[in-house]
């Protein structure tokens, strides 16, 4: 997979197929991005599992915190890693020890570890880096268009007005794969320099 620019069909396929998502680094602080990404994905119907060893015994929006991936105790479709790039590899190694393996490892906006991605892909796991699943869901459903964001999708169909807890269709016509070319090039240059 080219991790500089993902085709929309790749992201769409992941968001349409996974049902359970374990979020590593989920925060109970309601102004942290991990908190509101967790909340949004739960509202859109995903089975969310918060992973954070510092908060075991408490819950996040009704879901009990779990200390680590191995403590989930049931199969999980996707691992969403809300950690800095330097903390990705141990989480991916832990994910690779799960049985059954997760189908997807997703690293948040700003996080990228190509070596970890390569390991996961070698085990047949799909990888997404430096993206936010909330933004991508909002983009492909065009819900994010309310903020002036270029969803890079078109549709002549009437969509339902989104309400609380509704799953939205992500199957709009794509204007282009992944991010726009100029922003992709900039992200690639940045990752090559670091």
């Amino acid at each position: 997979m080219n991790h500089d620019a993902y085709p929309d069909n790749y992201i769409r396929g992941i968001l349409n197929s996974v049902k359970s998502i374990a979020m590593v680094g989920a925060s109970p602080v309601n102004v942290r991005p991990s908190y509101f990404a967790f909340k949004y994905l739960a509202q859109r119907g995903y089975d969310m599992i918060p992973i954070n060893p510092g908060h075991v015994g408490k819950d996040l929006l009704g879901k009990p915190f779990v200390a680590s991936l191995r403590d989930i105790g049931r199969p999980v479709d996707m691992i969403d890693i809300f950690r800095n790039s330097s903390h990705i590899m141990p989480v991916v190694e832990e994910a690779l020890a799960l049985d059954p393996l997760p189908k997807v490892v997703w690293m948040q906006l700003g996080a990228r570890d190509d070596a970890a991605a390569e390991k996961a892909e070698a085990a047949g796991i799909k990888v997404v880096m430096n993206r936010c699943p909330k933004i991508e869901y909002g983009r492909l459903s065009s819900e994010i268009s309310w903020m002036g964001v270029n969803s890079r999708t078109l549709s002549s169909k009437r969509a339902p007005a989104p309400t609380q807890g509704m799953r939205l269709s992500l199957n709009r016509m794509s204007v282009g794969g992944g991010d726009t070319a100029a922003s992709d090039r900039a992200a690639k240059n940045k990752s090559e320099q670091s």
Partner: protein
Amino acid sequence: MSDRLPGFSTLAVHAGAQPDPTTGARATPIYQTTSFVFNDADHAASLFGLQAFGNIYTRIGNPTNAVLEERVAALEGGTAALAVASGHAAQVVVLQQLLQPGDEFIAARKLYGGSINQFTHAFKSFGWNVVWADPDDIASFERAVTPRTKAIFIESIANPGGSITDIEAISTVAAKAGVPLIVDNTLASPYLIRPIDHGADIVVHSLTKFLGGHGNSLGGIIVDAGTFDWSTGGKYPMLSEPRPEYHGIRLQETFGNFAFAIACRVLGLRDLGPALSPFNAFMILTGIETLPLRMQKHCDNAKAVAEFLAGHPAVASVSYAGLASDKYNRLARKYAPKGAGAVFTFSLKGGYDAGVNLVSKLQLFSHLANVGDTRSLVIHPASTTHSQLDDAAKVKSGAGPDVVRLSIGIEDKEDLIADLEQALGA
């Protein structure tokens, strides 16, 4: 569902717009409302905290304006956009995110006269210091860079003389200086030039001109290319530092490659207030649907009129980059192969008096202070748009006393030429 890139004309008609979820209305409705109800207290808090997608108040965002924003972002190849009340408002909002009092920005000397005024006088009172550079001398931009430089500002096609700016060369200077390149793309429109493809980090427009295109609605827009890394060195604290207005959110961390557009919305538009009326957004959107058709006709007419003027005995010179003999023709062929725009200047052998005489005799051309209308327009910049400049600055910006500016409309070119011919001949 295939990942296929539609063409420019398809985007001009469709991007950002879908049938209204509530009514099925196919044209974009005018959501002429100040505010939007919340589902409950939690929903309200999520919206105010920038945690959920949705509408609060039209000063911050509006569904009609959002369609316009997504459409222009798509046409320019940006990640997001923000519509505001005018092109001038767009410039204030952009620089507010980038400059602290005492900072500097470098601007090309060849600019719309209103921008020269805004930068020289209004922005000075904010402590934002403009440093001028010559777009025909790229090294002058390099020489102007200091540790306080926060941005570089240019026009793709410069008003009033229609000269073409070497965007790529200046983007290299900006990248080396570690500052974003802002390009005012008003006179080109994305149909002729897409500055992001040439290294621009931010694009601004007066939507009032070719994008709206019919001389009936003011508007401005800011497009975020998603290319600039705001996180380095704390140079851009509005984007990289925790914002006290929003419980310590860092905009770049939260919004990634469209953080600049969000900053303009939630720190600029929200607090400075230059919101675009949804009615104007609707009018401009309707204009954009025919942008490719109009812009080609504008350019084809402009070239025919410029060629006519260049061959006329009363004309001293024509400054139109679409003419093979023009100084900027090489850049025009590189950056704007479909046409060199429709705003240009010429000077008359009879000087100032002949210019005034011409303007008074024209029957189809309207004498007014706008460009990018369906109608052909004429003005004498030295006594109007550029009148606040001193004589030396007028000449440097391409608006000397003998210069007449035309904005060529989409009428039949034979009628425009006939009108000029009768006015020049008398």
